[in-house]
């Protein structure tokens, strides 16, 4: 958004950012937020678990730590009558809230889906612990009362699997970010994916382009 502002301190901060070298860094930081936002949306819209954004999350977490430290340092000064910094701190806090919200929601969304190979180390540990307590709960509640051959939670016999798999045929909304040279085929139909267009298509047909980043789930 364009704004007309008449506030010198903030302006000075932004001008500092506009020096060439720092501008690039600011741009990179902005891109990281953008990437997190898209990763979060894609994760929420996709029926399967997507690759964990390892280095991105690392970068964001370390920057969050820096900002928290900055706030802590300066809140002490605030007590000794530094008035101008108040607004700056408020802005930093707002941004922290925003980023933390998306980050938490991203991690939680991932924990609702379960595929081991795409999990981070922490997520795997969490999942194993969660599953162990779930089995314990089921056992104490009712499983131990059932005949032994009915106690399994992963029975796949009788043409009926107890293990739920993601529905890859689920339709998803997507926006094409890069032209896809090859048409995709669904049944007898061929669909051309052109940059900028918006489609509703079953996930299985465009799965690999979600992974490659050529289309974005919206």
């Amino acid at each position, binding site marked *: 958004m364009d704004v007309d502002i008449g506030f010198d301190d903030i302006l000075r901060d932004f001008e500092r950012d506009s020096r060439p070298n720092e501008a690039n860094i600011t741009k990179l930081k902005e891109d990281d937020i953008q990437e997190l936002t898209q990763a979060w949306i894609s994760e929420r819209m996709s029926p399967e678990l997507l690759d964990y954004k390892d280095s991105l999350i690392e970068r964001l977490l370390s920057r969050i730590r820096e900002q928290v430290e900055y706030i802590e340092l300066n809140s002490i000064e605030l007590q000794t009558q530094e008035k101008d910094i108040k607004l700056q701190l408020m802005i930093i806090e707002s941004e922290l809230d925003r980023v933390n919200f998306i980050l938490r929601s991203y991690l939680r969304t991932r924990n609702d889906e379960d595929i081991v190979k795409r999990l981070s180390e922490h997520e795997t540990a969490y999942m194993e612990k969660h599953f162990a307590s779930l089995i314990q709960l089921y056992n104490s509640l009712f499983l131990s009362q059932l005949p032994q051959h009915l106690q399994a939670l992963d029975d796949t016999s009788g043409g*009926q*699997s*107890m*293990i*739920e798999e993601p529905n890859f045929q689920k339709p998803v909304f997507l926006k094409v970010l890069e032209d896809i040279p090859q048409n995709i085929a669904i049944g007898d139909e061929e669909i051309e994916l052109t940059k900028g267009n918006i489609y509703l298509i079953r996930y299985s047909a465009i799965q690999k382009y979600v992974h490659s980043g050529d289309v974005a789930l919206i």
Partner: protein
Amino acid sequence: MSYYDLDDIISDGQVSCSLIAKDTKLELPIWIAEILAICSVSDDSSSFFIEMIQPEAIGSKVMNAIKTSPTSIDIHSISQHYYSLVEKWGKLYTDKKLVDVVQQMLKERSEEINNHAQSLRGAQQETSFLYTLDEFEKQLYKISHESHKNLKKWLQNESS
């Protein structure tokens, strides 16, 4: 079919007409009929325990009614899980014609359901349509109504 989907499990209990080898007619739930229809009586026999008879719900009479006027047919009274029934039968007998007709019906009925969910037409006078919906269609009506309502609320919430 999903292991934990209640509607799916219930629709498996729907009655379908079956015929035992010795010419006795019997009504059985799909889940057992499905098994008996593909089990041989004995290892060296090619005859099965039962032979399924097409349920009336997907018979030619209903098919014709659907083709003539998809939005005025009372699907609810034919089967409360009509689309699941069609899917199961379609899979058992690879009945492409059946699926085509019912897909066309869903396209037309869903448009009507969406209109009702947005209460675009004289909502009161046409509520009778809503009583003809099967469980899947009711769910459609509910989620469509919900999302239109939510957006309206979001747009109008101007003070907060």
